[in-house]
């Protein structure tokens, strides 16, 4: 979530689900919340019971729309045009929360005089380098700053990271024009940029009727300000685009302009794809991050040692100035007490694996095809279903020498070599596949202990209920004992490349007949401890860069503050009558804050904006912040504190008492992002890489910086390609879980959605002579599948720029294993990515539809 990081400082949901109940308006866009987050949706209904307006903007009328007050139909991939229209409405009608925005955002900051907007360059910003297919962002910077360009980083920093140069480079006060008259202040640039996003243009580009769009704008602006707040919820309906990051930025800008961040009933709830996905980016499983969003060292960046890494990756101003404490404590946790400041680049810095480029999932699959990767260990994924262009993936898997799949059932990945359509069609021959494939039985959640970290950054502990059957083992058991065996294997090696394994600390206590490692011991290491006595630290404020502390994940520090005290076990809700921050329920990072940036819930002087939305305030008598949540601010920093610039302030000293966004170098929310994003400082409407229409707004058709891998097996469709006239959008159903393994294999969930299907609007079905339950074939240049038709008015055609655009909806859970089966939707999608995150574009691509079947090609 680089978009939330680039706007507010931390790439995570700013609020918690239960706080939605305090909202006066809830906007759900890029999410089918009722279906995919049904438990969180409870709080939307609670808000509704109190009179809140619920808005759902989506290409499809879903179970979420059925419970909304306003349903705004939006053509797949046109969300930025819609959001830009809202920004235009707010700015041109002067409906922004002036006092909040002037004090807490960078609206008055002045940008370089050579900045050129998409208005000037027909859809491009200044700094585009055609030969490198990337931006040089120097002209986007704050006036009088000389900051490194993002071009050097192109293809390097591309993950979810709030350290991603956010506020990193600021080294002096930012020049501002509080009168907002300077033509290069952010306010004036934004007004020019969004001038063409009129309600008429919104209707032309998105297909949403103008009246409906205006109704949304009215509801949003009416329910914001001192007395009221509105919240936004999004999910993978926004991230699965080549413009995903900029789409989320659109909502972030709206929420900052309306003064809805850091306040009860406000915020942006990033609804994550499944349970503990938040945890898997925090701890993380991403290739370009170390635990706690510390950047993974890059081989080509020339960081010789720990000192140069810290110098480049830490910040002068703001909280990120403390980063050296977190990396040193991490190294101390990994490589133990015997290393010193002089060991291997500093506490074993050299032993951390270095990255060399984009090693995320999409290019990883291509690397298998190119035989760069020879072995694959897969846990918790089913890439032949959830990957993209999965026919190409299946054809390349035989290049592997070995593959280990840990699963609770035999999934499609483990069985592709003898059961896939490619085998039935004779394209793959099981006798010719040389890969040695291992299927290892995994435990289900009830068969192991540990934590889930959910959407709202909340760690919740769960105990083991029963022992898993037979050879089923937990992931922790597998990783621990694998590590043990590797250490044994390499213990006598003198090869320097084996040093990281030799030096790794790997000594968790085990119990029971299977020697199950203690998950609580791992959590204690994650929390951090002092090396001298092994006692847990109370939180990340205790961490040091002198080598005296160890900490596995600094943002989680505080979850295990004393021996035997695991706050993730907490199950104490606030009793009725409290505001509902539920401090005793689990543990939320950072520092148990439930609403981040909550300093913004008070006005610049530290008083609540209103009695109705009171949350955190300055207690002048005791000289401290107080309220219903853990303050996301220095506890004793008075609202009137000003940095003394003559004394060259560092870190938090440089942020004044009116700067709620403490991770940012200037302490402000960034409406305009001068550094950190690869595709522009402001969201701009581009068509999806595959679109049936030319961009109605600019000469630039699609996101210029989008990551493309045009290869013979990964072709893209041209704009308005007559062979692929329809928009296909893929999605999940409430009845199934992602790749489908936990639900398609169980009869009671399989029967609820027992087969794959495609949802088709009646107008298109009529043209093609298709009726419900007819077999249909969907095709793209990547491949074709057959499925059954479900004709429904819930899908609608869109009239875009005078042209009728049909969309076909396609759930992607299905495969050939289990009780609920169907062809694999992701055969149709391509490998293409957002420039910041390398996330695919499964939500909007083109394809064809016909009545009939694939003859003889069905397994």
């Amino acid at each position, binding site marked *: 979530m680089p978009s939330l990081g680039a706007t507010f400082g931390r790439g995570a949901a700013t609020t918690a689900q239960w706080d939605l109940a305090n909202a006066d308006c809830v906007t759900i866009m890029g999410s089918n919340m009722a279906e995919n987050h049904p438990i969180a949706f409870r709080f939307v209904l609670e808000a509704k019971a109190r009179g809140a307006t619920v808005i759902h903007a989506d290409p499809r009328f879903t179970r979420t729309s059925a419970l909304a*007050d306003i349903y705004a139909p939006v053509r797949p991939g046109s969300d930025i045009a819609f959001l830009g229209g809202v920004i235009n409405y707010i700015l041109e009608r002067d409906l922004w929360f002036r006092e909040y925005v002037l004090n807490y955002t960078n609206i008055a900051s002045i940008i370089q005089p050579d900045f050129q907007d998409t208005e000037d360059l027909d859809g491009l910003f200044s700094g585009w380098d055609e030969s490198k297919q990337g931006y040089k962002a120097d002209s986007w910077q704050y006036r009088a700053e000389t900051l490194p360009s993002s071009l050097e980083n192109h293809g390097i920093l591309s993950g979810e990271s709030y350290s991603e140069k956010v506020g990193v480079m600021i080294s002096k006060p930012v020049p501002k024009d509080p009168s907002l008259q300077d033509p290069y202040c952010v306010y004036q640039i934004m007004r020019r940029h969004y001038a063409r996003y009129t309600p008429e243009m919104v209707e032309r580009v998105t297909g949403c009727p103008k009246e409906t769009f205006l109704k949304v704008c009215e509801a949003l602006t009416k329910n914001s300000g001192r007395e009221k707040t509105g919240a936004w919820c999004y999910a993978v309906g926004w991230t699965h685009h080549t413009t995903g990051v900029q789409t989320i930025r659109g909502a972030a800008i709206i929420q900052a302009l309306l003064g809805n961040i850091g306040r009860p009933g406000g915020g942006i709830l990033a609804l994550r794809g499944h349970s503990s996905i938040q945890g898997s980016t925090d701890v993380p499983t991403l290739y370009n991050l170390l635990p706690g969003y510390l950047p993974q060292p890059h081989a080509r960046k020339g960081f010789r040692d720990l000192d140069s890494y810290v110098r480049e990756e830490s910040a002068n101003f703001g909280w990120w100035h403390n980063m050296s404490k977190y990396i040193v404590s991490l190294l101390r946790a990994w490589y133990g007490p015997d290393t010193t400041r002089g060991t291997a680049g500093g506490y074993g810095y050299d032993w951390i694996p270095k990255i060399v480029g984009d090693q995320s999932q999409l290019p990883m699959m291509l690397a298998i095809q190119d035989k760069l990767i020879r072995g694959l260990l897969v846990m918790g994924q089913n890439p032949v279903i959830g990957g993209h262009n999965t026919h190409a993936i299946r054809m390349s898997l035989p290049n592997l020498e070995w593959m280990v799949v840990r699963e609770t059932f035999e999934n499609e990945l483990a069985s592709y070599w003898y059961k896939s359509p490619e085998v039935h069609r004779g394209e793959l021959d099981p006798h010719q596949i040389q890969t040695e494939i291992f299927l290892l039985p995994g435990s289900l959640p009830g068969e192991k202990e540990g934590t889930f970290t959910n959407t709202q950054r909340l760690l919740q502990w769960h105990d083991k209920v029963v022992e898993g059957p037979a050879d089923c083992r937990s992931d922790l058991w597998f990783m621990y004992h694998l590590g043990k065996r590797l250490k044994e294997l390499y213990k006598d090696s003198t090869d320097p490349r084996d040093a990281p394994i030799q030096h790794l600390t790997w000594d968790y206590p085990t119990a029971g007949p299977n020697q199950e490692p203690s998950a609580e011991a791992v959590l204690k290491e994650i929390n951090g401890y002092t090396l001298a006595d092994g006692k847990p630290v109370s939180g990340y404020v205790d961490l040091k860069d002198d080598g005296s502390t160890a900490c596995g994940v600094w943002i989680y520090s505080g979850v295990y503050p004393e021996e035997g005290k695991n706050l993730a076990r907490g199950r104490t809700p606030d009793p009725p009558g409290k505001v509902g921050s539920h401090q005793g329920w689990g543990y939320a990072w950072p520092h148990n804050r439930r609403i981040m940036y909550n300093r913004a819930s008070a006005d610049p002087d530290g008083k609540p904006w209103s009695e109705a939305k009171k949350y955190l305030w300055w207690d002048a008598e005791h000289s401290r912040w107080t309220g219903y949540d853990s303050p996301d601010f220095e506890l004793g920093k008075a609202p009137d504190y000003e940095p003394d610039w003559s004394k060259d302030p560092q870190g938090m000293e440089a942020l004044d008492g009116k700067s709620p966004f403490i991770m940012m170098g200037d302490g402000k929310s960034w409406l305009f992002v001068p550094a950190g994003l690869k595709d522009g400082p402001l969201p701009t409407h581009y068509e999806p890489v595959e679109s049936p229409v030319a961009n109605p707004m600019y000469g630039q058709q699609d996101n210029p910086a989008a990551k493309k891998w045009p290869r013979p097996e990964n072709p893209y469709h041209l704009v308005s390609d007559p062979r692929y006239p329809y928009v296909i959008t893929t999605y999940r159903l409430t009845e199934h879980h992602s790749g489908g393994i936990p639900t398609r294999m169980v009869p009671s969930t399989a029967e609820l959605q027992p087969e794959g299907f495609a949802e088709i609007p009646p107008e298109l079905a009529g043209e093609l002579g298709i009726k419900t339950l007819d077999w249909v074939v969907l095709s793209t240049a990547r491949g074709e599948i057959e499925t059954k038709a479900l004709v429904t008015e819930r899908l609608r055609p869109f009239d875009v720029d005078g042209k009728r655009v049909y969309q076909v909806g396609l759930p992607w859970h299905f495969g050939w294993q289990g009780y609920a089966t169907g062809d694999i939707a992701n055969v149709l999608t391509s490998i293409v990515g957002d420039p910041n995150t390398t996330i695919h574009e499964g939500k909007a691509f083109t394809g064809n539809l016909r009545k009939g079947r694939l003859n003889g090609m069905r397994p």
Partner: protein
Amino acid sequence: MSAVNYAETELQDARSRVHLEGHPVHPLPVPERALQYRESILAGIIPHEAELTAGVTITPGQSYGFFTDTSLCIGCKACEVACKEWNNLPADEIGLTGQSYDNTGRLSALTWRHVEFIEQPGRATSMPAFQSHWLMMSDVCKHCANAGCLEACPTGALFRTEFDTVVVQQDVCNGCGYCVPSCPFGVIETNKLDGKAHKCTLCYDRLKGGLEPACAKSCPTNSIQFGPLDDLTRRAEQRVKDLHALGVDNAYLYGTRGGPGATGGIGRLNAFFLLLDRPEAYNLPAAPTLPSTRVRSGLLAGLATMAGLTLAAVAAFAAGRRDR
């Protein structure tokens, strides 16, 4: 950066701050006893668990039931899954029906909770509060106050429990099937596997153990509410008032005493519903009747017919004599 400093005196009731104009708000209560279980540690079975999950102390001798509020239903089918898992019910025939998102089709011997999906014609962009245009409703056995199935059962397998619910005793049922046509809602069914009659037990076994029924416990939006019948009825009536205040004029209760669904001698439905369209839209009879009430009128009609025929015969004989 340290722990929270709550200023207790400053704490306001956030929920009471927000008011619908002129209408008190009824937020979801946090049951008192939930505060007693501060950690996720498994410490044996929690006594009277329903007090935590539903705020209800289950006491034999009281009437219990379901209030299914369709205006809150999101069609997630968690109730169907929870029911099958708890009651160990196998899947029905697996296959796509083409009827919107409904693939279990109907209540049956193997499906005791069933979510209906009703797609209404038209493409709205502005809608009344809560559910509209795609109606979803979790159907279940109504546990009628006067139950047709129970009256028809010749073996006593069907009986009324100490919780005022209607349950089939599997060891007594002989599979005669008389109960099947006697249910005005088409709920009860015999199963081809064992030949016996099956339907929702309102989780009789769970109630005995102090647990809330599985479907109600799993419902994420409180569309299915479990509790003492009088309490549920009060809540439901308030909910209808609240919805009317929000402009949802078509909300009404189905199955409460004197209302639709509770006609024809049935009295009332212990599992009743808040509906947003005509009962027929949900496959529910608008005016169901207890079969025995039809037996009575049928019997009278039969007697009257016999009397008429007798009179006719007498008249015919008399006429014959005259002719002779």
